């Protein structure tokens, strides 16, 4: 779908996007994870042919992109960008959905069919005749998504599609994304800073940080064999919900951790780096979920540090700057880690 080489974009001498090479296959769902200000929206607007890069080359479906209106106009009919804070035009929700369809000169019957189907996909089937400016923030996002879906594009670029959508409707947005990918073969690239949202939709996850992109697997994602454990054998101090019980997760190298999730069988688990406590070796007051390891790497993050600790597998621990300074930790130190049972989540 996209082949990118040496792509850069700067805003007043600050490099926002700097991608050496990237290849995105068609008909798949991709997620672009990254913190705020990582360059996600800028990259999406470049891929949506709404802004041009400062340098680099983009091939779209085998076609080399040159930034002239003659080339860009037909491309914009194939790729639709849904903004993080989308705008709806004055008029009804239906009028908004018809905007792009009229440009594509579809007949009325087909337009009505697509409008109804798209609105149903995002759970707004009863909103067609409602003035767009009366919609809430979340509804506006869903209406904008429906407006893009109605166009049946080859590629949809969604910037934080579930941000500010209430939890129950987040699921309808996710379902809509899955359905249009599976049924209409629409390639989708969406941005998020929620890794669970990313993994709930796709395994093709890219990471963008300070404009640089990588497909390296994320930190603290592990395969494990899970076994349910009953509430009575769980120590209340360690499991948040003792009445419900939890699971014993066996990782490679014989590492075992108790989680307060009810799962069994082979699972993919994520251990939240912020929910791992770091203890000095003489602080080992607890007996379960205690892992001993050596600090392999220390990297500064936005508002803290990320420590890579070798406990038999490489575990990332996030420490805020204050805690980090208090502990005087350095590479090579031996530490004990307390992995809180609530830190472990099951991934798709």
């Amino acid at each position, binding site marked *: 779908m996209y082949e990118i080489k040496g792509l850069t974009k700067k805003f007043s001498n600050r490099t926002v996007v700097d991608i050496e090479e990237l290849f995105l296959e068609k008909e798949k769902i991709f997620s672009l994870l990254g913190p705020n200000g990582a360059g996600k929206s800028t990259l999406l607007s470049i891929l949506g042919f709404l802004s041009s890069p400062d340098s680099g080359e983009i091939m779209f479906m085998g076609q080399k992109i040159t930034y002239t209106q003659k080339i860009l106009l037909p491309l914009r009919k194939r790729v639709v960008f849904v903004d993080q804070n989308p*705008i709806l035009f*004055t008029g009804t929700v239906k009028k908004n959905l018809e905007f792009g369809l009229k440009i594509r000169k579809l007949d009325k019957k087909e337009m009505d069919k697509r409008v109804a189907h798209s609105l149903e996909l995002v759970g707004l089937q009863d909103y067609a005749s409602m003035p767009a400016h009366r919609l809430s923030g979340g509804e506006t996002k869903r209406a904008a998504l429906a407006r893009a879906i109605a166009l049946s594009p080859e590629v949809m670029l969604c910037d934080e599609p579930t941000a500010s959508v209430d939890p129950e409707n987040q699921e309808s947005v996710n379902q809509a994304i899955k359905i249009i990918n599976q049924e209409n073969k629409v390639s989708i690239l969406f941005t998020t800073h929620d890794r669970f949202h990313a993994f709930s939709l796709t395994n093709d996850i890219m990471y963008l940080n300070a404009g640089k992109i990588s497909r390296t697997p994320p930190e603290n994602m592990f395969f494990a064999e899970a076994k349910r454990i009953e509430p009575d054998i769980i120590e209340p101090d360690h499991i948040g919900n003792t009445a419900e019980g939890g699971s014993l997760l066996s990782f490679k190298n014989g590492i075992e951790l108790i989680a307060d999730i009810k799962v069994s069988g082979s699972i993919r688990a994520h251990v939240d780096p912020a929910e791992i406590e770091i203890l000095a070796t003489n602080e080992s007051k607890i007996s379960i979920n205690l892992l001993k390891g050596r600090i392999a790497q220390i990297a500064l993050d936005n508002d803290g540090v990320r420590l890579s600790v070798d406990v038999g597998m490489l575990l990332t621990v996030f420490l805020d700057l204050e805690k980090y300074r208090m502990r005087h930790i350095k590479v090579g130190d031996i530490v004990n880690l307390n992995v809180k049972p609530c830190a472990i989540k099951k991934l798709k």
Partner: protein
Amino acid sequence: MEFFIDSFKSAILLALSLDPELFGIVWVSTKVSFTSTLLASLFGLPLGFLVAFKEFYGKWLLITCLNTLLALPTVVIGLFVYTFISRRGIFGPLDLLYTQKAIVIGQFILILPVVATLTIAAISRIDERYKMTAMTLGGNGIQTAWAVFKEARFAVIAAVIAAFGRVIAEVGISMILGGNAKGFTRTMTTAMALEYDKGEFVLAVALGIILMCISFLVNLLFNFFQGRSGTK
């Protein structure tokens, strides 16, 4: 005070009597003002739209020049156009001086910057995301521009109404380029000036009342559209 009240009473009676001379003057005034507003809108709206919509070298200089032209006195415009259309002027052979066309030309120059600058302000207030949205939905230049224009339509209509309000009340251009010829180029404002010179206050006050009524209606419309543009 008694003099004012008497003049006012007589003026109202004159206005209500549907006096042909009075309404002839009102008709000329409305006609030339409407024509010049129409022409200024035809040129000013696209000009304002283009300046607001496009990025180009010298944009802010152009906006500054347009803003400066807002302060141009009507007498200066009158004299300026006069030099072109008087018998010795470059357009002298066209015999435009002391015609309604001459007033329209002068008024056009007066309100073209009004329409253009208010349109620039109206379009500039529209969120950039409207443009991006129309573009990503497949809109070409004209379709995108139209989508943005529709979002700014109330403020743009208000710009046109403001321009009409400006020309209907001006006197300098109509006096210098129209010549205040009875039945031809006599407008409400020039007639009022003349009647004042003659000491005939009744007709002047009657015309003043009608002018104020028209201005009031124009302002009502202006506020209505301004309000719509703010609350849509």
